[in-house]
């Protein structure tokens, strides 16, 4: 087998990458989504406690196109998608690059459950395009893409796999450790996993679940233990969105982080945004999956260290 870093393997990975992007575009075009491009340089990123923007002059490089995409929803664009570079300060690891490629798509009139099904369709379509009929092999595990995928709530996952309860994890601020070191490693058993219904404090832009206001209608998608996507039923209540942003901003200030201006134009247009669901999917990681690569470095042309 080729060495992971061999030029032949890299060439093959870049070929797969081009195929993945072509398949993604085709999928959304077939479903009558409009491809859009929103500005990379923005004055006010969404205030989220653990996502840090790269400054450029007085403005910032976007950490995701989320706010601009939602403004388009508010302006009457009902099905939109975008494949764009995003930038997040300080993120570098086997699955992270500070500059990475994100696919986001939004659709009016649906909720996160519809998006779960659309993810299943998307992976089936991309897999077929790349010649994987119903399964793929990632790091020695065969992953069966046949829907429906396993769905498990955050609470169920904590009950099953975490050494401490969800309440205790939240109270002692170790939710992320439990997720990263005890729960995510269990999502590598041959089937895609949809982890859903996050505690409300962990979904700053997600809608409250109508029959359970303690959770946000948010899900994350895992394949082969790799986190691929994050989705919401979008929060459309302006008052609540402003309050959640205020809370995130307070947390950022408490941690000594840059305080972004409040995204007022977004909040203003949110008034007219329809009920909708939206999702962000890491394209580099999608390529890792189909190229069977253990490191994000292997699926990009150049890493920052190589520049």
């Amino acid at each position: 087998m080729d060495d992971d870093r061999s030029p032949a393997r890299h060439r093959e990975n870049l070929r797969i990458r081009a195929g993945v992007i072509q398949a993604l575009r085709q999928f959304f075009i077939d479903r009558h989504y409009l491809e859009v491009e929103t500005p990379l340089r923005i004055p006010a990123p969404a205030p989220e406690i653990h996502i840090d923007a790269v400054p450029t002059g007085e403005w910032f490089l976007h950490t995701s196109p989320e706010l601009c995409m939602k403004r388009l929803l508010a302006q009457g664009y009902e099905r939109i998608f975008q494949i764009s570079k995003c930038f997040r300060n300080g993120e570098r690891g086997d699955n992270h690059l500070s500059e990475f490629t994100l696919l986001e798509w939004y659709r009016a009139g649906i909720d996160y459950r519809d998006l779960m099904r659309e993810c299943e369709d998307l992976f089936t379509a991309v897999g077929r395009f790349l010649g994987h009929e119903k399964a793929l092999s990632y790091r020695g595990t065969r992953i069966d893409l046949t829907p429906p995928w396993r769905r498990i709530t955050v609470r169920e996952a904590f009950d099953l796999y975490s050494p401490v309860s969800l309440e205790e994890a939240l109270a002692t601020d170790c939710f992320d450790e439990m997720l990263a070191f005890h729960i995510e490693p269990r999502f590598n058993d041959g089937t895609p996993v949809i982890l859903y219904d996050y505690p409300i404090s962990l979904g700053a832009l997600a809608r409250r679940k109508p029959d359970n206001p303690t959770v946000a209608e948010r899900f994350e998608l895992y394949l082969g233990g790799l986190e691929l996507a994050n989705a919401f039923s979008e929060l459309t209540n302006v008052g609540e969105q402003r309050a959640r942003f205020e809370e995130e901003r307070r947390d950022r200030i408490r941690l000594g982080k840059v305080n972004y201006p409040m995204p007022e134009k977004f909040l203003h247009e949110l008034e007219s945004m329809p009920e909708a669901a939206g999702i962000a999917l890491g394209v580099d990681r999608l390529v890792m999956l189909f190229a069977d690569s253990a490191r994000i470095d292997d699926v990009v042309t150049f890493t920052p260290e190589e520049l």
Partner: protein
Amino acid sequence: MYNASDLRKNLKIQIDGEPYNITEFQFVKPGKGQSLYRCKLKNMITGSQFERTFRSVDTFEPADLQEKKMQYLYPEGNKYCFMDLETYEQVYLSDDQVGDTTNYLIDNLEVEILFFGEKPLGITLPNFIELTVTQAEPWAKGDSATTDNKPVTVETGYRVLVPPFITEGEKIRIDTRTGAYVTRVK
């Protein structure tokens, strides 16, 4: 002062007054969650290891490490005496600290010694060192049946495999990183 984002494999940091080397490093960040820096740390004095996960807010003292050029003087009991070539100060290292570098320690050899503050931690030898063969079986000329390497003893007492033509009294070069014979020195 280091921040968590400076952490990487082989960085040396100080925790509770002791120096640690990061032997394994992993950056993890679950979706929308905080950055987690998972490290395997090895205590550079005791050798003990443990795993710890740090967060963005954590900061670290760099380990106060310094390499000094020193000269090996003599053994004393189970200790080894070295002298700083600039200050002429002498320090003693234990058996454990010198380890198998004794295979190559000859009088007046210049080595690098790693210090944590005032405390010596270990020796780095030159990559190549020349030693005299003090005992070797003679080469039976014409004995073409064997071209295998043979063991000889060098002046430090170290035994090493060499080609059959090496004789007593000759100098040979040894790679201290592998312990292997490199060449005959004329």
